[in-house]
C-alpha cells in the first residue's frame, strides 16, 4: 500500500479552486481588459481570461492565474495571507485620512501687480486695508491650524501676490514656529510667489526659516509675458531672475515652478518643456486651466476643451519620454503622481485625486478677510459670488463648527467615489478623485454627471494611456524611475 494517495487526490476541485477578491474591470483596447483591486494594483487580461477568471475556469498553471494571485485578485487553498495583505495595503492607502488636515493656506493679500487674464482671484489695488490679511485674522487662523491633529503641518502663503504683504508672512512664520515649540509638529512653509517683487532680503528670510518657494513659469518669454501681463511687460525676465536668485539664496532643491496651459500654450508644449529644461528644472507639471474666477469671466477657461488639453498633454508626455530615452532625466509630475497610485501602496495626497475628497480634510484656506474655505478652488469660486464651500470664519467659528459644517460634510459624503454613480464600478476609481468643487463649478452638482464630466474624461484617458505605456518595457523602465 502506498504511503500517499494519488497526486490527483490533492488537486483542488474545480469549484473550490479559488475565491475572487474584490476587483473592478474596464475595457482597455481591442480584446484587452484592465482589472484593478481595492488598493490599485492592476493586471491586463484578455476578455476570454477575464470571463474564465470570474467563472472560476482560470487554470492555476496559467500566467494570468499567477499574476492575479500575486496581486491579490484571488485567494486559493495554499494562500491564506492574501486577504491580510490586502487589508494592510488598504489601510496604508487610507492612512492619510487619519492624519487629517495637513495643508493650511493663508491668503496674505489679494493684491497683485500682475493682471493675468486666467488668474482666479487677484486684484490690482493699492488698498491694503481692503485686501490684506490682518495680524488678528492670522492669529485666529493659526489657532485653527494647530487644532488639526495632523503630525505634519504645511503652511502655504497664497495671494494675489503673497510677497506684497511679506510683513504678515514673517509674522505668521514666527508665530507658527513659536506655537510649534510646544506642539512639536513637522512644520513646513511654502510661499507661492511670482517672484517679480521679491527681494534678496526676503529670500534670505526664506532661507533662515526653511520656506520653500513655488513660482509660476508658463513657458518661453513671449508666451509667459502674454499669459502674465504686468507693467513693464517683464514678468518672464523677473521670474527667471527670481528663480536664479532664489536658488542661490534659498537652495536649488527648494525652488519649484508651475505652469498653466492657455490657448496660446496648446501648440507649444515642446517649447514649454524646453524652457523648463533651460531653467534647470528636473520636471514639469502639465496642468489644465481651472474653471474658476477670472479664468471663467475672461473666457480663458472656455478657450479649449478637455480633448484639446489631452492632445497637448500627450504630445508633451511623448516629448518628455523621448528626452528620457536620450539620457535626460526629466519628469512629468502629474504622470508621476498617478503612477505612484498605480504602483505603490501609498497615497500621494494630491488633493484633486483623493476620495473622500481632499476638501477640508486635506487642505483648508484662510482667506485675507477671515473666511475659511474648503480648498483654494473654493475661495476662487467665492470670488465669483458662489460661497457654497465657505466653511466658516476664523473670528466667529470654532474648529468643530468648521470641520462639521454641512458645507463640508455634505459634498464629502455625496461625492465619495466608492458610491458615486459610474465611479463606484469604475476600474480607475483607485487612482481617481472626487473633486466636488470642480463638478459643482462646471455642472452645478458636487457629485457630477460623469459621462459629461471633463474631469472624468481627462483622467480616464490619462489612466488608460499610462497603463498602455507601462506595457512597453523601455517606457516602463523610464516611468518607474519617476515614482
Amino acid at each position, binding site marked *: 500500500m502506498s504511503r500517499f494517495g494519488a497526486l490527483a487526490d490533492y488537486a483542488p476541485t474545480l469549484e473550490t479552486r479559488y*475565491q*475572487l*477578491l*474584490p*476587483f*473592478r*474591470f474596464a*475595457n482597455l483596447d481591442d480584446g484587452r481588459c484592465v482589472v484593478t483591486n*481595492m488598493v490599485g494594483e492592476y493586471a491586463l487580461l484578455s476578455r476570454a481570461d*477575464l*470571463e474564465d477568471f*470570474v467563472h472560476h475556469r482560470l487554470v492555476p498553471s496559467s500566467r494570468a492565474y499567477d499574476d492575479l494571485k500575486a496581486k491579490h485578485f484571488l485567494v486559493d487553498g495554499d494562500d491564506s495571507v492574501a*486577504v491580510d495583505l*490586502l*487589508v494592510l495595503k*488598504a*489601510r496604508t*492607502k*487610507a492612512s492619510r*485620512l*487619519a492624519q*487629517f488636515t495637513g495643508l493650511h493656506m493663508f491668503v496674505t493679500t489679494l493684491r497683485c501687480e500682475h493682471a493675468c487674464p486666467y488668474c482666479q482671484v487677484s486684484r490690482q489695488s493699492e488698498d491694503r486695508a481692503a485686501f490684506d490679511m490682518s495680524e488678528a485674522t492670522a492669529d485666529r487662523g493659526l489657532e485653527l491650524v494647530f487644532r488639526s*491633529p495632523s503630525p505634519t503641518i504645511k503652511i502655504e502663503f497664497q495671494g494675489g501676490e503673497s510677497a506684497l504683504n511679506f510683513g504678515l508672512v514673517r509674522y505668521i512664520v514666527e508665530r507658527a514656529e513659536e506655537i510649534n515649540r510646544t506642539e512639536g509638529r513637522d512644520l513646513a512653509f511654502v510661499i507661492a510667489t511670482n517672484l517679480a517683487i521679491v527681494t534678496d532680503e526676503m529670500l534670505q528670510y526664506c532661507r533662515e526659516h526653511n520656506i520653500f518657494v513655488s513660482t509660476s513659469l508658463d513657458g518661453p518669454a513671449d508666451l509667459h509675458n502674454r499669459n502674465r501681463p504686468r507693467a513693464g511687460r517683464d514678468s518672464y525676465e523677473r521670474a527667471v531672475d527670481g528663480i536664479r536668485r532664489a536658488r542661490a539664496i534659498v537652495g536649488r532643491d527648494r525652488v519649484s515652478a508651475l505652469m498653466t496651459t492657455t490657448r496660446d500654450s496648446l501648440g507649444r508644449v515642446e517649447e514649454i518643456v524646453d524652457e523648463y529644461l533651460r531653467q534647470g528644472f528636473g520636471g514639469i507639471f502639465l496642468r489644465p486651466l481651472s474653471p474658476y474666477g477670472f479664468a471663467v469671466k475672461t473666457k480663458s477657461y472656455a478657450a479649449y476643451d478637455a480633448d484639446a488639453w489631452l492632445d497637448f498633454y500627450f504630445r508633451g508626455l511623448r516629448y518628455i519620454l523621448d528626452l528620457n530615452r536620450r539620457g535626460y532625466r526629466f519628469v512629468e509630475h502629474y504622470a508621476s503622481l498617478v503612477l505612484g497610485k498605480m504602483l505603490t501602496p501609498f497615497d500621494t495626497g494630491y488633493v484633486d485625486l483623493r476620495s473622500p475628497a481632499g476638501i477640508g480634510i486635506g487642505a483648508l484656506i484662510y482667506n485675507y478677510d477671515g473666511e475659511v474655505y474648503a480648498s483654494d478652488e473654493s475661495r476662487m469660486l467665492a470670488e465669483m459670488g458662489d460661497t457654497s464651500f465657505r466653511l466658516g470664519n476664523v473670528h466667529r467659528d470654532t474648529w468643530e463648527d468648521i470641520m462639521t459644517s454641512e458645507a463640508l460634510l455634505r459634498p464629502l459624503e455625496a461625492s465619495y467615489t466608492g458610491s458615486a*454613480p*459610474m465611479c463606484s*464600478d469604475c476600474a480607475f476609481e483607485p487612482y481617481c478623485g472626487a473633486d466636488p468643487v470642480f463638478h459643482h463649478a462646471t455642472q452645478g452638482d458636487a457629485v457630477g*454627471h460623469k*459621462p*459629461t464630466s471633463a474631469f472624468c474624461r481627462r483622467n480616464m484617458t490619462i489612466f488608460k494611456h499610462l497603463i498602455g505605456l507601462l506595457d512597453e518595457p523601455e517606457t516602463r523602465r523610464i516611468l518607474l524611475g519617476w515614482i
Partner: protein
Amino acid sequence: MVDEGGGRFSAVLCFSTAVYSVEAVKRAAYRFTDRLSFDISLRDQEIRCSVTPLADMTKVDLASLTARVRNEVLDQDLRERIAAETAGVRNVVLAYAFSATGLQDS
C-alpha cells in the same frame, strides 16, 4: 430601430429578467447618458429600454451605439457577479482600513 421622421431615429432594447437585473441595465444606460436618453420599464419578464439620441444621429451610428449599450449590460452583469462573490471580503477590508483611526478621541 424606429424611424421618427425627418432623419431622426430611436431604438428599443429588450432584456430578459431571467438573465439580467434592472440595476445592471440602469447602470449600463447611465454610462451613455451623454449621448442617449433612456426610458426603462419592466413588462412581464422583460426589461424594456427605449433609447432616444440627445442629438441628431444616423441610423448606423445609433445602431452602433446601442450595440455598445448591450455589451455594457453584459459587463454590468459580470460586475454584479463579482460584487456578489466578493462583498464579504470587501466589507472586511474596508472595515479594517478605516477602523481605529484615533480621530474619534481627538
